[in-house]
């Protein structure tokens, strides 16, 4: 399989790439940190990847998206799977007082992805096959006071993916929305979370690989989050607004 990964050095993307590497897949990796990217590229090669190309790029550098996509397709010699995994988790207290910071969160988690998907969708639609898997979040299912700026970006992303799925279904291209719950990664390290609600990147990665294989549309990872979010979304707004969530 020919796999393009954006945000490749994020913990979930790394774990996912390792599963595909063991199968001998080809990779084009995109990430911001040169050294981490180099470490991952070597790692995937040792684990069995048949080819690994890479590009250092900030996901918000939308001017370079088209070049990146062309380089990926050239290097991979095609495109079967795109995994978009970059993102940032802001401090809600900071962003709710500062519009430029809010805008940055929307760019990191939403607008940059939309820019990439515009080009990727056209390529996939034209070739008539492929899977586009994008990491959204359970946080996008309902706005809450503790992280509604991040939630807005992910919520917007989930809706965009819904529409894209509808459009690309006719071309035989699958769009997978991945909604992880709490995952122990560098992005969430400051939350110091532990307990039954927290999952490891390896568990999420296994879920992603399975969802891609089964052509799923939306997947909550771990699966129990679907139940939790169903309950959270069912609470009437008049009650919900009084809760401290």
């Amino acid at each position: 399989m020919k796999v393009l990964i954006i945000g490749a050095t994020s913990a979930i993307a790394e774990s996912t790439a390792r599963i595909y590497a063991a199968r001998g897949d080809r990779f084009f990796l995109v990430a911001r940190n040169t050294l981490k990217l180099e470490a991952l590229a070597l790692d995937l090669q040792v684990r069995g990847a048949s080819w690994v190309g890479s590009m250092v790029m900030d996901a918000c550098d939308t001017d370079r998206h088209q070049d990146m996509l062309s380089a990926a397709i050239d290097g991979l010699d095609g495109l079967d799977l795109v995994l978009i995994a970059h993102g940032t988790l802001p401090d809600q207290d900071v962003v709710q007082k500062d519009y430029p910071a809010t805008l940055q969160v929307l760019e990191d988690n939403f607008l940059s992805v939309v820019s990439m998907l515009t080009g990727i969708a056209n390529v996939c639609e034209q070739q008539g096959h492929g899977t586009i898997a994008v990491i959204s979040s359970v946080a996008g299912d309902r706005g809450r006071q503790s992280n509604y700026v991040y939630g807005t970006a992910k919520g917007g992303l989930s809706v965009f993916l819904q529409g894209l799925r509808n459009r690309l279904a006719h071309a035989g291209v699958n769009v997978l929305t991945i909604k992880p719950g709490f995952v122990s990664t560098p992005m969430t390290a400051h939350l110091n979370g532990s307990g039954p609600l927290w999952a490891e990147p390896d568990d999420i990665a296994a879920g992603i690989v399975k969802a891609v294989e089964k052509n799923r549309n939306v997947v909550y990872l771990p699966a129990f989050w679907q139940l939790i979010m169903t309950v959270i979304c069912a609470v009437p707004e008049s009650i919900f607004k009084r809760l401290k969530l």
Partner: protein
Amino acid sequence: MASGRFHSWGLNPKSNGKPLRLSSRFEPLDLPDNGLVLPFGNGRSYGDSCLNNDGYLLDTHSLDHFIAFDQDTGILRVEAGVLLADILHLVVPRGWFLPVTPGTRFVTIAGAVANDVHGKNHHQAGTFGCHVTALELLRSDGQRLHCSPDENPEWFAATIGGLGLTGLITWVELQLKPVMNPYLQEETLRFSCLDEFFELNKASEESYEHTVAWVDCMARGSALGRGAFYRANHHGSSAPAHRPAAPRQMLGLPFVPPVSLVNRASLRLFNEIYYRKQPLRRSRTVHYQSFFYPLDSIQHWNRMYGPRGFVQYQCVVPEASGNEVFREILAAISASRQGSFMAVLKVFGAKQSPGLMSFPMPGVTLALDFPNAPATTELLERLDELTRAANGVVYPAKDSRMSAESFQRYFPQWQDFSQFIDPRFSSGFWRRVTGESAP
């Protein structure tokens, strides 16, 4: 990151070391202005050698990348936090195996180096450190030392068995051993006394790569020193007739029970049944995971000792005095009625480790585990006396209680070693056995 991960395997002592993240092997150490740090791998050493009370733990979890693997020569280079389990997963299907492995595959490679771990093949292969071809050491002042037997050899020697104190190991290069398949041909022989064990061992050392014995340490009187001897070689055929599956992961203990499940009654019962279950003589083909890592299939087995945790004890005494000393040691354990769930007996060989502070020496080694209780402390003091008198050594990786006096007697080279310790690095163990206090 879940702070619940930062304890040692014995769940004792408790520690409050604060984790520090490492971003990649290329970055310099980003240390706070004050306080001592210690690298933390997967927390599989038993006592406080992996803990750093009131200080920081450098979490090597993120250093989990493979760097290079030459399938023709079996030279593998990996980052510090890669687990032996991950290495086996990659290399066994390609015809390679770890040259030396401890009894769990859930240790990091840097942990294996820092404790210079050994396995059932010590009499032929020596320690893990004997097979390390190179490593990189990152010091708190930003210096990177490429260490091998030829390059910075004194740092290489200090870091192998150096308990993580000489700096952060960023990567390790290892010479693997070729194998035909994932199986071993194992033979089990029951023995009824220590003399019989020593005879069996002598007869097996040359022709079997792996030898180890289990001893029933609840047995007394004429049954003292009874047990079962296991010897094995990697299966030499490219197409073994029998190919047993890897053991399934059992559920294990999902939480720490409020009291220890290990007590005198359960120990006596276990040891009795275990002894009777051993065949007089049996030969079979086994999967490497069943042979090397029987306890790995029970997740969190360390929790069975309850919230107080447990204490491991492993000593080695020179073979000349081995037989007699072990009779006394076993008699002391049996008389204390403390008993051990798993008592493992093994004869180490003469192959010298490059490690300055390495634990193994030619002689007989015994590994035991006990519930963490006052009576255990007394018994272990007694065992220390016997070990000291026989010019033996106790294993730091499994210790949480030896006195500074004992340690300095076991490791007279500790002061030579001290000059290689990074000024920003320390551990609970090191402060305890050298009498230093944390600033």
